[in-house]
């Protein structure tokens, strides 16, 4: 029976070339958007090189400080993070880093623009970088303000070609740094890890020792397990209550240790927790809606495709097709169509991601279509196939044969 349905479906699909084409186009396009978006989100917010421990990481990225005259929101001073975050007892490790900064450097008379990042030793413990050569710099390097650096592979190739870079020097930010390690490239959407050159944070020209609340630093907290998140958050809030303001610029501080999702929502929607939650849900809802639009369109195309065949349905019913048989046939037809469309969509997505990965639109991007996304894709495709197949087929099956026949001749 199924074989008969499949044969019939293929025949019908080949005969309705235009509709088949439009449907396939709709399906593959919808899927491509869905898949690219998920790949993007996955790449940005899911665990990926080098942030593989994302699921047990918390971030202090977005603090709000207020004084009688000014208030500011965003990253904060090294002094604050060092005193109130680094001192947390519950986490396994805490790292403080600067945001990456673009600087111009010269090497062999050539000018290069590189992204430089100041980090501590814990950064290399929390992140899971793949070292091509050498290793990370140590706590001692940071304490002793050693002028050492780690560079990524792209920079290494630009500066030193195929030779080993270890022990060679790079000039950046008016200082000479000795290369101690080379790591695989990090894509820019991994914004907290991204850089071309990483140096010990103590090398910064800024004063990071004296009291100050203003600064462009952030902290990443690695919990021993995910279960410790509430404890860490609570401990951090306690520390916040104890902050001592040493001058009159600021007198209050708000913020939290967030998961990557929480911090994304906080950045987008602000601090008020209940409001933030609501807005976050609305935001996610809008995003889903945005992704559903092409899907709804697809359903529409499908419904029309079936409605166009009123008269065929009337004829088949007249000659002995029961409603169930017809519904079955339309479902099989739709599943076949969606699977083919899904397959094409996967190929297109693959091409699109490859273009992203190989072009310079996003530096060092490495979008992957992992099996999880592939699985989602197949599921989503089938869901659409059923959604857009079952509903119109069910509606049609309720028609008397004579109604369908008349609908066809009208």
């Amino acid at each position, binding site marked *: 029976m199924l074989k*008969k349905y499949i*044969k*019939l479906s293929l*025949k*019908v699909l080949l*005969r*309705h070339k235009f509709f088949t084409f439009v449907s396939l186009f709709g399906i593959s396009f919808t899927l491509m958007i869905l898949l690219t978006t998920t790949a993007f989100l996955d790449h940005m917010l899911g665990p990926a090189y080098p942030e593989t421990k994302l699921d047990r990481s918390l971030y202090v990225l977005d603090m709000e400080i207020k004084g009688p005259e000014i208030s500011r929101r965003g990253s904060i001073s090294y002094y604050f993070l060092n005193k109130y975050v680094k001192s947390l007892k519950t986490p396994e490790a805490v790292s403080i880093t600067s945001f990456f900064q673009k600087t111009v450097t010269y090497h062999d008379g050539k000018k290069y623009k590189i992204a430089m990042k100041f980090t501590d030793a814990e950064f290399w413990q929390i992140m899971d970088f793949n070292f091509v050569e050498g290793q990370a710099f140590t706590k001692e390097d940071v304490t002793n303000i050693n002028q050492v650096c780690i560079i990524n592979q792209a920079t290494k190739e630009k500066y030193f070609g195929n030779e080993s870079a270890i022990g060679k020097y790079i000039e950046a930010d008016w200082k000479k740094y000795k290369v101690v390690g080379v790591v695989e490239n990090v894509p820019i959407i991994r914004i907290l890890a991204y850089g071309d050159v990483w140096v010990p944070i103590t090398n910064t020209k800024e004063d990071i020792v004296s009291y100050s609340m203003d600064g462009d630093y952030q902290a990443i907290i690695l919990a021993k397990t995910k279960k410790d998140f509430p404890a860490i958050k609570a401990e951090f809030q306690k520390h916040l209550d104890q902050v001592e303001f040493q001058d009159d610029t600021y007198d209050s501080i708000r913020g939290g240790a967030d998961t990557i999702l929480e911090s994304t929502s906080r950045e987008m929607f602000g601090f008020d927790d209940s409001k933030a939650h609501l807005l976050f849900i609305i935001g996610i809802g809008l995003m889903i809606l945005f992704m559903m639009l092409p899907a709804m369109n697809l359903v529409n195309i499908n419904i029309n495709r079936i409605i166009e065949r009123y*008269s*065929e349905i*009337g*004829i*088949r*019913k*007249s*000659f*002995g*097709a*029961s*409603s*169930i*048989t017809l519904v079955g046939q339309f479902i099989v037809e739709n599943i076949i169509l969606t699977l083919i469309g899904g397959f094409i969509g996967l190929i297109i997505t693959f091409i699109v991601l490859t273009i992203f990965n190989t072009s310079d639109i996003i530096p060092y991007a490495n979008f992957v279509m992992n099996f999880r996304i592939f699985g989602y894709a197949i599921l989503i495709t089938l869901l659409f196939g059923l959604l857009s197949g079952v509903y119109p087929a069910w509606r049609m*099956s309720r028609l*008397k*044969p*004579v109604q369908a*026949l008349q609908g*066809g*001749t009208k």
Partner: protein
Amino acid sequence: MIQLNNIDKVYATNTIETTALKAINLHVEKGEFVSVMGPSGCGKSTLLNIIGLLDSATNGEVLIDGQSVQKYGDIKLAKLRNQKIGFVFQSFHLINDLSVLDNVEIPLLYRRMSGAERKRKALAALEKVGLKARTKHFPNQLSGGQRQRVAIARAIVGEPELILADEPTGNLDSVMGAEIMDILMRLNKEENTTIVMVTHDEHLAKQTQRIIRLFDGSQVG
């Protein structure tokens, strides 16, 4: 073969009610060739659709082979249509996207049968209507008379006991109409198929065994 008891059919739309059939009582014997006549809008098609289980009556009872179908569900009705009835429509109602052969095979798709068997039967039916050379054509590549012959092949391919033909010659000129009539007469004589045919053509109607006349939804003779 067919028994109609006190059949009423009322079409109700939001604004008006149309009584298409009033208190129809009808009996058709197995092997009979009956024609239905009457002015346009008197309810001939409605009657045929009710006999053919394509539509349901508002009141009354339909018996096919002594079985009342009033309480039959969709699957049972579909099976009856498939096994016992073959339709021929005035406007042919062929599926334009399917070849002649595929069109003729339609009733057999809803039976347990191998593809080869289906094809063999469809070719035999096409041979009976003299269209064996046109199996790979599509309906829009055929003349009106040829299309109606495909439709007849489709109606007889499942060897039904009853053929319902709604103005089968209505869209054809008199020569082609006569050809179609010949095929139906032969079916009735040689295979003892019961036929109910709606027609406006007195000349054709006279060739059948009995004429049922309708006027304004009621039987008048």
